[in-house]
């Protein structure tokens, strides 16, 4: 089975803090994705990566950056957390052109 893990299930941070969300997949997938999920809005793509050190902006990249130094790991970085970044963050991975598989999510609260 595909396994996508996220470093934290719940996270509480203060405004202005730098926040790192980590995602690891064990299936040698080329593609990795970060989404945020908000009630009534579904999932919105923040960034994705189709190879090591490669990244592409999604629909809502503002306030976020990403890092992919190794194929299995994709990190989402909030340079200076703000309260409007309180959300559920979901990571996914896939082979090229194939189905995305999701991690359990990280629920982030920014105070």
């Amino acid at each position, binding site marked *: 089975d595909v396994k996508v893990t996220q470093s934290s299930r719940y996270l509480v941070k203060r405004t202005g803090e730098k926040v790192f969300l980590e995602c690891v997949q064990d299936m040698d997938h080329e593609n990795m994705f970060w989404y945020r999920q908000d009630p*009534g809005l*579904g*999932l919105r793509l923040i960034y994705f990566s189709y190879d090591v050190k490669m990244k592409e902006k999604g629909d809502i990249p503002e306030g976020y950056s990403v890092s992919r130094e190794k194929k299995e790991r994709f990190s989402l970085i909030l340079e200076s957390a703000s309260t409007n970044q309180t959300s559920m963050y979901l990571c996914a991975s896939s082979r090229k052109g194939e*189905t995305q598989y999701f*991690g359990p*999510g990280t629920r982030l609260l920014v105070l």
Partner: protein
Amino acid sequence: AQSVTQPDIHITVSEGASLELRCNYSYGATPYLFWYVQSPGQGLQLLLKYFSGDTLVQGIKGFEAEFKRSQSSFNLRKPSVHWSDAAEYFCAVAINNNDMRFGAGTRLTVKP
């Protein structure tokens, strides 16, 4: 603009009753189509997908979906709902796998 619409925010059905969740999309070409389910506090699990071929697709947990090109729809169905089916359901479409768009979700409540 490309979009995915799930018209029903919340649906309540009785256990044992049939279920249909609606999904409509607006894309220039026939996209890849997906249904995912999310249990409370969990990530998304793939129920089924349509890439091409037979327009009636069978998935896990007894779910099926039918692609209707003329209606730009991909509705999810189950003949008899179980209490464990209570969850949020997301329809998603993709032209390629790097550009997946999700609907806002439909929350399903199952009455005993």
